[in-house]
């Protein structure tokens, strides 16, 4: 009963929240906090009971849910994220409480959908809930209904639609190639499939589809746009959980149908590395608090995908241990990143709800005297930068360890992997650099505008107790998960990989990797951020506007080139250009030609005339003969005394007949009706021919 409650409960309670909100907003706010809290408690039950559940006979093959270590942990984290953001949102939305029914409805429903994906036992179930959350989370992005939000919303929507459809295609291919979509059977079915190429193509489609949500390069474009415009609690969810849904999907396919597929592994690895580096660079250049965090999310997704790629490659090579390390690293990093982004986006939310701006220059110095916020943000920053004793350190070290294992075991890729190792370390360094940039800007430096700084300093209060609890409480987790004992046990629980317990987090080699990263980061901060990216003491936006994949390629392709191409088709075949002339030539001219050929002026009229003339002539002759005869008779046999000259009616009759006939024929012979008649005539001729030929 646990799983249906967790998954379907929110679908029922979402509308309830909406109804309540129509009557009373305060009750609604408490109600949603209650719902998410209850969800959190229920999801904790998952860890202890490990249930599974299925419904047959609905939605193309039924829904099935299952739990294992990873799924149950993510079930809990999903609920935790929701509970935290909901708690925080109560204060965040203080000013616009009236218009939030729609928002809360979709937030609650998305919770159910996300749990549905996380606990899914087959790809179809995952797909169903994935599509639901794609569309429900769309309303978060567009919530503010400003111009930027609408634009970002369109980007998000269309990428979600494309992703959904490609995923759909992948599922159909996989279903055909393997005959099953259940995670339990997929591994065996894929290896015995008679269509291995199709399985691979299906895998690519599924990677693309889930990659859209994960923010994988090159379909990451929605991510840096959508996160900043969404309300902060929603950004935290978008970044912390919805990207993980994408990763979850990629993981499921990597662990089942394409388990240990080398080509696929290489593809994921390279895409991951590009995402990782690109996200870090974008974040470094960004001068907007939430945009930096969004780009940072993208970069961290890259880290995780690199782990997925390494896991696949190491499995292909047969190195169980290396694969286990990579897997532990990536799963831990998923957990860590979710929690870190929860803290950081809520901290950013505190800034937004107080100042309503996000550009670094304007918020500079605001947090100097806000102690709790400062600590929370610092913990998050330390966590994400991979500083020892904080949670990001262990997961990043494990990921690094995975790459190092790869260099040892995968001889043919060792050169490439060495480069990747450096990209990895530098990206880690950039993470440190941009987090330093944010922290120093908001919490250390003074604002350039002194009056503004005074106003900042005079206002110590920035959030209420509930929000402090949410923000600070979530940041404590950074330290808890930073302890190797906690992390390794969590990793073992999620992956089932026992040897991870013997992992020495603080061995000199592991510390060395981290130190290299941090040194690079500090150097980048001091040299690039302070010297290059700051102009006259202001944070300058030096990222060239034109270098935007969406504006450069996607939007033109989608809104210009494809419509142009399709437009060309529609113009060529559209009714007004070629087709219509052709059709009109065929239908009207063709029939017209027939009509004219046989019509009144060419054939019919002369024929009629001739016929009438002949008839006239004949009747004249006949008449004359008759007249002669009558005359003869009158003169001879039937002679009367007085013969009056009789008027001859015949010529008039015939002329009347002629005009009458013409009047009847004209409407017939002109235009459409005649064409129709000719068609019918044609049909009759065909019919007669066939009948006479056949019988």
């Amino acid at each position: 009963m646990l799983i249906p409650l967790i998954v379907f409960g929110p679908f029922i309670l979402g509308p309830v929240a909406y109804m309540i909100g129509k009557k009373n907003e305060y009750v609604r706010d408490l109600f949603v906090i209650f719902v998410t809290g209850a969800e959190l408690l229920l999801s904790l039950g998952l860890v202890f009971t490990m249930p599974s559940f299925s419904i047959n006979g609905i939605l193309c093959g039924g829904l099935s849910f299952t739990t294992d270590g990873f799924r149950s942990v993510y079930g809990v984290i999903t609920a935790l994220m929701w509970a935290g953001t909901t708690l925080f949102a109560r204060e965040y939305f203080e000013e616009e409480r009236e218009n939030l029914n729609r928002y809360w409805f979709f937030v609650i429903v998305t919770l159910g959908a996300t749990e549905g994906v996380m606990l899914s036992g087959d790809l179809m179930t995952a797909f169903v809930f994935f599509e639901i959350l794609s569309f429900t989370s769309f309303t978060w992005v567009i919530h503010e209904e400003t111009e930027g939000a609408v634009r970002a919303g369109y980007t998000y929507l269309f990428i979600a639609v494309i992703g959904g459809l490609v995923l759909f295609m992948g599922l159909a291919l996989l279903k055909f190639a393997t005959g099953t979509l259940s995670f339990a059977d997929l591994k065996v079915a894929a290896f015995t499939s008679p269509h291995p190429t199709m399985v691979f193509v299906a895998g690519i489609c599924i990677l693309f589809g889930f990659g859209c949500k994960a923010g994988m390069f090159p379909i990451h474009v929605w991510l840096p746009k959508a996160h900043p415009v969404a309300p902060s609690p929603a950004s935290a969810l978008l970044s912390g959980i919805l990207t993980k849904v994408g990763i979850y999907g990629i993981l499921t396919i990597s662990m089942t149908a394409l388990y240990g597929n080398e080509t696929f592994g290489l593809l994921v690895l390279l895409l991951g590395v590009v995402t990782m580096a690109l996200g870090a660079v974008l974040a470094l250049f960004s001068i907007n608090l939430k945009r930096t965090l969004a780009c940072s999310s993208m970069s961290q997704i890259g880290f995780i995908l690199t782990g997925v790629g390494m896991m696949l490659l190491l499995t292909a090579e047969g190195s169980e241990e290396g694969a286990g390390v990579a897997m532990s690293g990536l799963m831990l990093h998923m957990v860590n990143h979710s929690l870190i982004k929860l803290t950081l986006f809520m901290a950013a939310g505190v800034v937004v709800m107080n100042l309503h701006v996000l550009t670094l220059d304007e918020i500079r110095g605001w947090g100097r005297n806000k102690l709790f916020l400062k600590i929370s943000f610092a913990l998050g920053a330390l966590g994400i930068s991979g500083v020892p004793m904080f949670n990001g350190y262990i997961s990043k070290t494990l990921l690094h360890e995975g790459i190092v294992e790869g260099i040892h075991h995968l001889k043919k890729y060792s050169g490439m992997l060495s480069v990747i190792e450096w990209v990895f370390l530098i990206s880690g360094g950039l993470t440190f650099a941009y987090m330093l940039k944010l922290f120093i800007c908001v919490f250390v430096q003074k604002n350039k505008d002194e009056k503004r700084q005074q106003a900042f300093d005079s206002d110590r209060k920035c959030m209420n107790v509930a929000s402090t609890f949410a923000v600070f409480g979530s940041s404590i987790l950074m330290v808890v998960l930073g302890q190797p004992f906690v992390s390794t046990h969590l990793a073992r629980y999620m992956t089932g990989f026992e040897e991870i317990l013997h992992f020495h987090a603080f061995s000199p080699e592991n510390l060395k990797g981290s130190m290299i990263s941090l040194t690079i980061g500090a150097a980048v901060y001091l040299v690039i951020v302070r010297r290059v990216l700051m102009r006259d003491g202001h944070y300058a936006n030096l990222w060239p506007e034109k270098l935007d994949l969406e504006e450069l390629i996607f939007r033109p392709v989608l809104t210009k080139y494809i419509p142009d191409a399709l437009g060309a088709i529609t113009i060529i075949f559209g009714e007004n250009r070629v087709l219509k002339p052709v059709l009109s030539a065929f239908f009207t001219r063709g029939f017209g030609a027939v009509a004219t050929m046989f019509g009144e002026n060419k054939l019919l009229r002369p024929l009629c005339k001739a016929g009438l003339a002949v008839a006239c002539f004949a009747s004249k002759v006949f008449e004359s003969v008759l007249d002669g005869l009558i005359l003869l008779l009158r003169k001879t046999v039937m002679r009367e005394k007085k013969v009056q000259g009789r008027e001859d009616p015949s010529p008039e009759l015939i002329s009347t007949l002629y005009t009458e006939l013409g009047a009847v024929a004209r409407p017939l012979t002109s235009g459409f009706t005649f064409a129709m008649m000719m068609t019918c005539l044609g049909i009759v001729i065909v019919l007669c021919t066939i009948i006479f030929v056949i019988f």
Partner: protein
Amino acid sequence: MMSPYLLLIPILFPVLGAFLLFFLGIPEEKDRQRNRYLETIVVLTSISVWILIFMAEREPVQIYSFISGFSIAFRMDGLAALFAGMVSLMWPLVMLYAFEYMEHSKGKNRFFVFYVMTYGVTLGLAFAANITTLYTFIEMLSLVTIPLVSHYGNHESMFAGRKYAAFTIGGTGLAFFSVVMTTVYGDSGRFVLGGSLNMSQLTPIMEVAFLAGFFGFGVKAAVFPLHSWLPTASVAPTPVTALLHAVAVVNSGVFAITRLVFFTYGAGSLMGTVSQTIALLTVVFTMVFAAAMALKQRHFKRRLAYSTVSNLSYMLFGILLMTPHGMTAGLLHMVFHGIIKMSLFLCAGAFIHVTGNEYIYQVNGVGKKMPLTFILYTLAGLSLTGVPLFCGFVSKWNLVTAGIEAGSPQSLSGVFALIISAFLCAMYALSVSVRAFFSTEESDLYLNRPDVKEAGKSMLIPIAFFGILNIVLGVCSQPIVDYLGKIAAGML
């Protein structure tokens, strides 16, 4: 079991009943009287259809024979039950909608007489037992709907009516060739699953005949070169565009082609022929072409009309795969698309009726004034795109898997086209919803329009009904899929 002669009741009852309206002399402005009379006729007909679906014997009954072989005969079988059942469910509801929609229109008597007569003709088409009967009723359907298309009587409507007549009557003439050939070379054109031709392999002339039949009946199903009547006809009143040009008339084309492919020529003998390839590629092209055209339209109903063109090709794609699964998928899309498009058109009609606006750029912000209508519109749009939970997903899933199973390059290209057109579909259907709900304050056209509110009950009930059906069938589609599978396997 009931005598199959009773099949004549649902065919003749609405035709005669509606015809009687002329003699009853109900004045134009007596709405309630007329509405009651007509709704009674329609509901009784629907009830009789459902009784017959369950009770009638599956035996053909010959009514009249022209010459040997060419005869008018009716029979209730699985496919007929499906089509008649679908239509009979929709007609009473759309009648309700039409009563409100047409309340300020002129010439209501004429309109409703033809509207109800169309019902009888459609049922006759569904029950047709051989190809001659089918052909007769398809031509009758064209004739009886012409006054409905040009109902408004203005220049545009008259043009649309003329174009409609020229395309449907003239085009269906093409199919006559097929009718004659199959009647002569088959068992009097009788419909038997697996084909009734008495030749083991198709001769080239028979393939040509098939193509003539395909394009001839394809005019009704708006296959590419002969599709343009459908968007033009969207000037007709919404009840006509919704019920006739999204369901009854256009699906009769698909229905006829199904009969042609599976019941006269036989899928076995057509499979792999050149004619199949030609037909399939035409349909695949139409899918993408019409979806792109739909994106170009700025007139709400024209956009939906092009979307219908595209979706009719989905159905034909399923059917032209000529596999049982393909047939199941095609018919499934026929039913589900009917529900979805009904929903979309009725919502669009409600918008047009309430605001008097007809263009896409005029919907900005209307979602806040007419939330129910546009929520249901959005759900239908999502369904059309193929989002799970809605019925469009089920049919699309079946179409795609059937296409992949068929495995030929043509069918795979069709699957690809289907995905592209689904994307285009999301663009043209959902951008309307986004405009309606999420417009910025400057672009909101209805901010200060207190007169714009939800339409009346008799419009909302059908809209809500189809909206609910959309979700219910999307979640619990298995019974329908099984039923269609049985039809495709010849078990019904």
